[in-house]
């Protein structure tokens, strides 16, 4: 081999604590190295040109760049060597910035360590083989999981681009959390007025198929060729017959059913259409309240239904579809705030969540837009908002900021004043986080125009006294304990990953963080992609975000899916496992452990052998570490390569 080595100074980032020129000089002693130099900014255009020039002048067939982390610039340099006609996998990086120059001040030790890292990169490169990606066809159809605003946006964008979309929604209607909101910040426009048309578009778009009351059962296959099984849960209503007339709900005798859509504010009927704008507008039976199921007899809805759509015997249905890409937009849930016993832990009826308050304010809500207390139906005058309930709290394992509570609290304070002009709102806050277009102005309006009292401090106790509540907290700006008498307390409850997110993540084979939020592929540079090719993220499933960000992310996920499926053939990463059929004994251990089911047993001249399904393999190398004969080798991370690296470190 003829290897060229390039040691970067990265200005003074590396140069200040590593003798880059000295490392380059030493690198000339390494085997197969025929060229070595140092360079000021290797990633810059002149830097890359230098590599390209050296490749042609010295007939290099492999390149090592010692610079920043390969997680930063490996793709950049791979493209550069490819431009010079060298296979892009005949390239290795030594990380002498993040792992050397930035973490140590001793120049001698740093330079020595940098040289060591170059040495192992050279040893690894000597055992690299040129790799070429394979191509395979894909299914031009996208699965969108979750019909909140992010999912709706992703679905509409994909469908408008001409790609078929299948949308799966767990609830009876799409719309997600946004459909429950009264108004939205910072414009205070009506939530359902802006979301409603989009929901209708979903229902009417010829390219979109919507499955409500459905969940993902299982996923197999791989990017471009996923096979998805959808479970359509029995709603006891035949959607092909139901016209959404609502007669059934009107006549339903079980009127004390839990109202999920209204967050338990008020009750509903056992058979219901969750809200007037629901999409699909089909009735659904809640079996835990329906008398037909609870008591075994009733049948009122079946009798009154003009189209005979009620079918108590309906069973779950499994549906298999082929898709090329998937968008996970499963949204969020509220933290279980009842862990806070100092806020009553659910014992006080007039301590409500922000989302309940949205329903209490909403004109389409159970109170028809007139705010009243759940305890006695009186109109509250003093309303206290407490922020960061379940956010930024290490003690309950929710250390993160939920992002949008500051804003909706301001909105709710404003709306409270609009609804009840003689009311007074108080907001206990830790910090006001309003970094968005028009956001900070909005919170100021709440204070200045609407007279909301903002008190910087936490609340330590809420307790009832008479028919009011004493909210005791601290005003950290005044340095004093404060007590506010409140008629209603609204908790700005924080956000957590939707229930069962980890379970779904495991089905999708994507990672999730310790809070259950799905993990993006790279926090900055690949915020939409996941570690499983062809699975993209949108909305709060990835982490808390407000409506504009969710919509933007929905569009971004759509763009990624459209981009992926715009190609007729997809390219696979060639850094995958390969079976040396001569060494394989067909013991099947690799098949057992492969997380992707990417290895199958084949019959080779009467003997069992393992075979890697190239498009499925993700290159984790678990099979390689499992195979006792070393018959399965992960390209570019072969046993011999790692052994050579170990040896280079130990032997010298």
């Amino acid at each position, binding site marked *: 081999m003829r290897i060229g080595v390039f040691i970067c100074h990265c200005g003074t980032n590396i140069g200040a604590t590593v003798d880059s020129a000295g490392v380059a000089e030493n690198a000339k*002693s390494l085997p197969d190295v025929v060229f070595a130099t140092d360079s000021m900014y290797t990633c810059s255009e002149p830097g890359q040109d230098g590599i390209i020039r050296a490749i042609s002048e*010295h007939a290099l067939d492999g390149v090592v760049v010692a610079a920043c982390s390969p997680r930063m610039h490996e793709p950049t340099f791979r493209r550069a060597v490819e431009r010079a006609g060298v296979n892009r996998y005949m390239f290795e990086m030594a990380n002498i910035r993040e792992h050397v120059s930035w973490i140590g001040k001793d120049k001698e030790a740093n330079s020595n360590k940098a040289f060591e890292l170059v040495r192992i990169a050279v040893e690894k490169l000597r055992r690299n083989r040129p790799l070429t990606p394979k191509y395979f066809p894909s299914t031009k159809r996208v699965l969108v999981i979750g019909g909140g605003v992010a999912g709706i946006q992703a679905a509409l964008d994909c469908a408008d681009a001409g790609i078929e979309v299948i949308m799966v929604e767990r609830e009876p209607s799409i719309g997600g959390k946004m459909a429950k909101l009264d108004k939205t910040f910072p414009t205070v426009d009506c939530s359902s007025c802006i979301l409603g048309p989009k929901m209708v578009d979903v229902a009417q778009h010829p390219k979109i198929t919507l499955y409500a009351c459905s969940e993902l059962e299982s996923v197999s296959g791989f990017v471009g060729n996923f096979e998805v099984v959808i479970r359509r849960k029995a709603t006891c209503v035949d959607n092909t017959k139901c016209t959404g007339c609502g007669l059934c709900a009107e006549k339903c005798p079980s009127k004390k059913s839990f109202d999920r859509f209204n967050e338990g504010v008020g009750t509903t009927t056992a058979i219901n259409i969750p809200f007037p704008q629901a999409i699909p507008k089909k009735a659904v039976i809640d079996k835990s309240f329906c008398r037909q199921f609870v008591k075994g007899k009733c049948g009122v809805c079946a009798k009154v239904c003009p189209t005979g759509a009620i079918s108590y015997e309906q069973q779950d249905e499994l549906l298999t579809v082929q898709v090329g890409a998937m968008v996970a937009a499963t949204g969020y849930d509220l933290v279980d705030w009842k862990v806070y016993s100092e806020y009553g832990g659910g014992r006080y009826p007039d301590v409500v969540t922000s989302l309940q308050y949205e329903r209490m304010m909403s004109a389409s809500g159970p109170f028809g837009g007139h705010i009243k207390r759940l305890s006695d139906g009186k109109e509250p005058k003093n309303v206290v908002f407490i922020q960061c309930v379940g956010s930024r709290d290490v003690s309950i394992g929710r250390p993160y900021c939920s992002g949008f509570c500051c804003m909706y609290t301001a909105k709710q304070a404003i709306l409270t004043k609009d609804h009840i002009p003689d009311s007074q709102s108080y907001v206990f806050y830790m910090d006001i986080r309003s970094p968005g277009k028009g956001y900070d102005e909005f919170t100021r309006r709440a204070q200045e125009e609407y007279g909301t009292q903002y008190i910087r401090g936490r609340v330590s106790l809420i307790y009832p006294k008479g028919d009011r509540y004493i909210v005791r907290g601290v005003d950290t700006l005044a340095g004093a304990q404060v007590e506010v008498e409140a008629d209603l307390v609204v908790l700005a409850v924080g956000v957590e990953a939707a229930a069962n997110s980890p379970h779904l993540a495991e089905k999708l084979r994507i990672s999730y963080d310790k809070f259950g939020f799905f993990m993006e592929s790279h926090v900055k540079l690949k915020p939409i992609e996941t570690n499983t090719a062809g699975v993209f993220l949108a909305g709060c499933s990835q982490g808390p975000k407000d409506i504009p960000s969710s919509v933007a992310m929905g569009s971004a996920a759509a763009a990624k899916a459209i981009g992926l499926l715009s190609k007729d053939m997809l390219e696979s990463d060639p850094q995958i496992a390969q079976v040396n059929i*001569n060494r394989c004994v067909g013991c099947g251990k690799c098949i057992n452990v492969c997380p992707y089911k990417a290895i199958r047993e084949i019959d080779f001249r009467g003997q069992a052998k393992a075979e890697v399904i190239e498009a499925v393999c993700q290159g984790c190398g678990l099979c390689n570490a499992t195979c006792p004969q070393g018959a399965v080798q992960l390209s570019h991370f072969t046993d011999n390569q790692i052994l*050579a690296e170990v*040896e280079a470190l130990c032997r010298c």
Partner: protein
Amino acid sequence: MPGNKFLATADVAAWLGELSKTMRVFAPRNEGQAVVYREFDAAKGLELRRKPTESAKHALFPRSEELLSFSYLRPAFGAPEKEGETPSDVSQVQVKMPVEPMPTVVFGMLGCDAGSVTTFDPIYDGSKFKDVYYLKKRQATVFIVRACAEVLSTCFCNWVGGDPANTKNADVLATELSDGWLLQPVTERGEKALTSPLLKDAPAASEGQATAIHDNARKSLGDAPNLEGIDAALFSLFADNDFWQRQSAGCLACGTCTYLCPTCHCFSITDETSARNGVRLRSWDTCMASLYTLEASGHNPRSLKAARLRNRVGHKFAYFLRNNDGQISCCGCGRCIKSCPSSVDIRQIVKDALVQAASIAPPPPPQPVAPAAASPKPAAPVKGKGRTKEKANG
């Protein structure tokens, strides 16, 4: 006989210590539950009663030895003078030969072990090939053979022309008497080795005592069967897969028999490299392993252990004979039987082969035509060289 020396039991260690000053001295000692030949170390003792677990062949044919070492020199750096020219920085290789072997004495080796050199010599010192690595060691090594007073149930040197007091290839024959050792020089080189003042002239009666011991051992070996025609028998059974499958059923296909065998002499060559440097090693190989005959194509003519056992027995009792004047390349030490984890008994195979061959084609023709299926080519003189093995990295 003049030249016979006597070494008192108490002086053995002292004498070996004396020899160690100028030579490498190999002598058997206990290690764990095994008896092995090691460079003499008075502190670690000697074992001159129990029969050594391994043979002494590594004195001439180490388990692994350096044939040569090499380095790729650092190329001259710099771009070519004119555009379009090939760079002139092609690596040069520097090769170094290993150091010369030390003069060596193997003390206390068994007669069968010494006899086995008869198998090595035509291979490594043959008319076609001279193996310098072997020859230099052979010339620098003195064999002091210990006559067996006791024989084991696995001993059968008398079947193959050996003897408990074998002197073939020996330089000195040593026999343990009641109070010391009678050292009888066999060669001039042996005589020269016996010059220490610790060695006294042997009393006259000692030779007779020694002979009595030798005779006693010979007697306890019992009668040897007639192995005449064994080569023909084995050739005729070459294609008798059923026979070999039965014989090899219990074989584990490990290398114990061949690595303990004093006459097995196969090797493989590998380059071990590190950065710009490398060393070429010759190390023992075994025909009992599948890899031994694995071809680069992936094809393996001896993929079954039956074929491999056939090769081991065949080589010792047939193929080698044909090329080496009827010399059986087994010295009858019985180590392959004694240490076989599966109790495979080469004597039984040989006997069974004679019976089986007689039953299918009595009597075997004097010059049997090789079976049509595969022409059993006698082993190439230097077995290892013809082998294909993946090349070392680099």
